[in-house]
């Protein structure tokens, strides 16, 4: 049982995922160390996003088990993950487009304090406004707090999404291709932000661009065609013959 091991925050036991007859993931067992940045990499179609969705509870595995802090979370509904201390950002930008930047963060914060109160004015919920402003500062969006979210630049929307994920002050932050579609400057800023956030929590990120994550990751998992190909430190993974063949050889 992993329950005894506090150094492991998240663990999968032989998880598989079938879409119809297509086997997107096959029997993946891995554990994610607490307090580290672990990157899941692999070429297109490797099953990264599927694996990510199993980890974040958006998909239920066809077989196997997911454990968070020793608790079986395989069939826990998605909306409860935020309350357990797990937050995620999406691969495709996913904010509340018609609401202001500040209201986006405020709604995310409110999820932990008040979800079904239909009577008290929400403006009077104590502390929410201050915490929303602090979060906006943390992710560098203070200057556009009053703008409608859909009018933000792409990089700003991604930062907003991270801000919303941080609202629950998660112990585990799951990021699905956080730099997808970003300019080089935006990418650099995002990487800096991730490193900063990882000082206080565990980060698991899915990334397509291998080079990007090698420098900041403590551990790297390589997926290929739904199989776990390699699992180790960036240096180990770089030396792995199989990884070189299927991944590095063809792209970089």
């Amino acid at each position, binding site marked *: 049982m992993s329950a005894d091991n506090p150094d492991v925050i998240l663990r999968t036991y032989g998880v598989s995922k079938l879409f119809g007859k297509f086997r997107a993931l096959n029997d993946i067992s891995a554990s994610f160390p607490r307090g580290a940045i672990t990157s899941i990499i692999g070429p297109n179609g490797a099953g990264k996003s599927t694996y990510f969705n199993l980890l974040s509870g958006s998909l239920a595995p066809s077989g196997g088990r997911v454990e968070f802090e020793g608790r079986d979370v395989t069939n826990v509904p998605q909306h409860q993950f935020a309350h357990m201390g797990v937050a995620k950002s999406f691969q495709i930008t996913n904010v509340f487009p018609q609401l202001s930047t500040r209201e986006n963060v405020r709604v995310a914060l409110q999820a932990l304090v008040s979800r079904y109160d239909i009577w008290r*004015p*929400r403006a009077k919920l104590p502390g929410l406004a201050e915490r929303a402003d602090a979060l906006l500062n943390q992710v560098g969006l203070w200057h556009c707090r009053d703008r409608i979210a859909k009018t933000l630049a792409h990089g700003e929307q991604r930062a907003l999404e991270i801000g919303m994920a941080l609202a629950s002050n998660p112990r585990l932050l799951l990021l699905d291709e956080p730099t997808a579609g970003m300019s080089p400057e935006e990418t650099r800023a995002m990487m800096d932000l991730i490193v900063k956030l990882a000082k206080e929590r565990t980060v698991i990120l899915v990334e397509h661009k291998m080079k990007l994550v090698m420098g900041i990751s403590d551990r790297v998992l390589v997926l290929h065609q739904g199989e776990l190909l390699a699992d180790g430190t960036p240096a180990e993974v770089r030396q792995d013959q199989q990884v070189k063949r299927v991944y590095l050889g063809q792209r970089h």
Partner: protein
Amino acid sequence: MAVNEMSQSLAEAPPSSAGWFEFARRHRAGLASLFVLVFPLVMPFTALAANILIYGLYALGFNLVFGFLGLLSFGHAALFGTGAYLCGIAIVHFGLPWYAAIVIGVVAGAIMAAAIGALAIRTRGIYFAMVTMALAQCVYYLFYQAEGWTGGENGLRGINVNRIEIFGIKLDFIDPLTRYYVIAAFVILALFALSRILASPFGAVIQAVRENEARARASGYNVTLTRFITFVLSGAFCGLAGALAALHLSIVPIEMLYYETSGMAVMMSLLGGMGTFFGPFVGAAVFLLLENLVSLWTVHWQLIVGAVFVACVLFFPAGIWGTILKRLDR
């Protein structure tokens, strides 16, 4: 898209907007109530004004699900009709006082919404519209068949409330203006309740679910339960509208359960402005005024109403009230 306007009435206003607009937003329920109070004075007949109030409230309740939650229900006639029938049955068959009958109508609307919602709430988009419509047809059939209780196709007759007493004051409920103001009192209560719900934490959750279901879920909101609760709240408002209609008309016609009645709520909300606080009221007023005035000189009034509706959707996609709000907010 009308979606743009929804957020203006809902989301925090940009700080640049004029102070009086902010004031109006904050006191929307009070201002709407003022309007309700002077409304019969500018209307051709008081009975029509009362009708507009009732249908306005019905559309308001519908709009909670349609405009604010973002689900198109085609079965709201069942909630409106259930409120009306149960209010009527309480008076005709059980001889309950009128105020108790109203409470029963509200509760019945909510219970019916819970029953329909429990079955329909997991579906989206066109499927939600279809399922709610099908279930509403079942409700229609149920009331149609239960002739002993509901009068079947003749409607439920004999809801005769002539004199009512409020805190010792005796009122003549047959006098149209008195009747209007009794109904208006309940509508004003509902306006304040709705405004309060929209300004509550749950009001923010409703709009979050409409805006982005996946994000709302990832933030820790139970999307299905949020939808269900909103649907039940909507049922309570529509049940109240139905109960008031029963008292106003002294009869519950079976037509109240027709799917046309469901469609009316959609039209009124779109005409006035979906997702705005007061839009459905405006929509109900325009719809019923057109119906009443145009039908005076032609039996083809539906043609005119239809043309106005099409013109509105084409040229004012935010609805009449939504467009006005948008202009003012500039």
